[in-house]
């Protein structure tokens, strides 16, 4: 199981965010996109996920071009800047929805997954009434509900407290131990996580 990127390049209105970027990620490995704000971490992450535009280069999943493989979409789980939670539904309903549309869902129920992520009492309230940190946690619960091999986490630590940061590390550790792989886009360091670092941008 490998994800390979060959000379990726991103352009935004005549401005080069990055070019000739290559990396290779195998089972049990974590890659971190690091760099200052505006260096293109999110753009690169969206391009790798397949929602953003990739201007140069190609991505290979298990040796096949990722853009044309349906397997890639079912194997990846992308958690973006926006949590993807519907604010009129409760955390539980959101969780169950994403579990039901996923390629491979896990056996873990909503209550357990949300509980492990620290969303217990507010799980049945509409997401609109939750705090930003609680929303982030509710979104993280999806990592437990879906069996994806590749996690793409864009700023997973936004609005989380120290305990929440620990939770992300712990989720990542068990994911990697099970042979999964992950790409993180964050400038922060995660405690206890070994990751390859890919420095982005700075000077354009």
């Amino acid at each position, binding site marked *: 199981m490998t994800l390979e990127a060959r000379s990726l390049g991103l352009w935004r209105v005549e401005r080069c965010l990055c070019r000739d970027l290559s990396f290779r990620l195998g089972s049990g490995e974590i890659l971190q996109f690091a760099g200052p704000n505006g260096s293109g971490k999110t753009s690169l992450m969206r391009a790798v996920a397949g929602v953003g535009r990739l201007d140069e280069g190609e991505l290979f999943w298990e040796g096949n071009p990722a853009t044309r493989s349906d397997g890639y979409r079912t194997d*990846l789980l992308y958690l973006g800047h926006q949590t993807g939670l*519907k*604010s*009129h*539904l409760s955390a539980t309903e959101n969780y169950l929805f994403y579990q039901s*549309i996923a390629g491979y869902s896990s056996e873990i129920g909503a209550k357990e997954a949300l509980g492990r992520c620290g969303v217990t009492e507010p799980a049945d309230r*509409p997401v609109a009434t939750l705090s930003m940190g609680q929303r982030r946690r509710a979104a993280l619960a999806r990592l437990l509900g879906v069996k994806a091999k590749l996690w793409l986490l864009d700023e997973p630590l936004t609005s989380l407290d120290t305990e929440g940061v620990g939770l992300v590390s712990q989720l990542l550790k068990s994911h990697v131990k099970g042979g999964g792989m992950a790409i993180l886009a964050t400038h922060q360091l995660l405690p206890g996580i070994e990751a390859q670092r890919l420095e982005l941008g700075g000077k354009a």
Partner: protein
Amino acid sequence: MLALASRDLRISFRQPGEVLTPAMFFVLVTTLFPLGLSPQPELLRTIAPGVVWVAALLAVLVGQESLFKSDYEDGSLEQLVLSPMPLPLVAITRVTSHWLATGLPVVVLAPLMGLLMDYPTQAMGCLVLSLLLGTFTLSLLGAVGAALTVGLRQGSMLMPILVLPLAVPVLIFGAHAVAQAANGEDPSGVLYLLAAFLVLGITLAPFAIAAAVRVSLES
């Protein structure tokens, strides 16, 4: 697919104010005509098909503008694109559940508005049928526009401009069928044509919506 439809309908039920805006709009516009013009039954009867259809068209387009907005803003549109479901299927599901919540109330209220405009009761079936076929076609057209403009900040103005030219044939034939029925003629030919529009829309629009959503997310 069922999960998506039930999610959408559930969200609609939790915000009835927003969902019923098109129906309210429809009722308001139609009721203003008898007040603005003179309330003579003959006049109202003549303009009824056009008024009801124009109001329904605008109401549907008004409702369609918000179709992908919240999904785009909270990131769930990206998640739907990345889900293993084929995107055109997601699109048609999304449009159908949105139409059930916003378009169907318009169709249901149409006979009432017809009565208000002194539209002959025996032709009411044709009015409802033409709107049933027409509003769904308009929903599909509006969805293409909504998907194209969802990423733009000023998209709400652009969307009707993009969609209206395509919606005009539906309006012409829809209003024509309703007028024919009122005159006691057989409107089935025009209704078949409306049905053909709908079939064409159901077949092609999902692909256009899917492509438009992809383009909107890429920028």
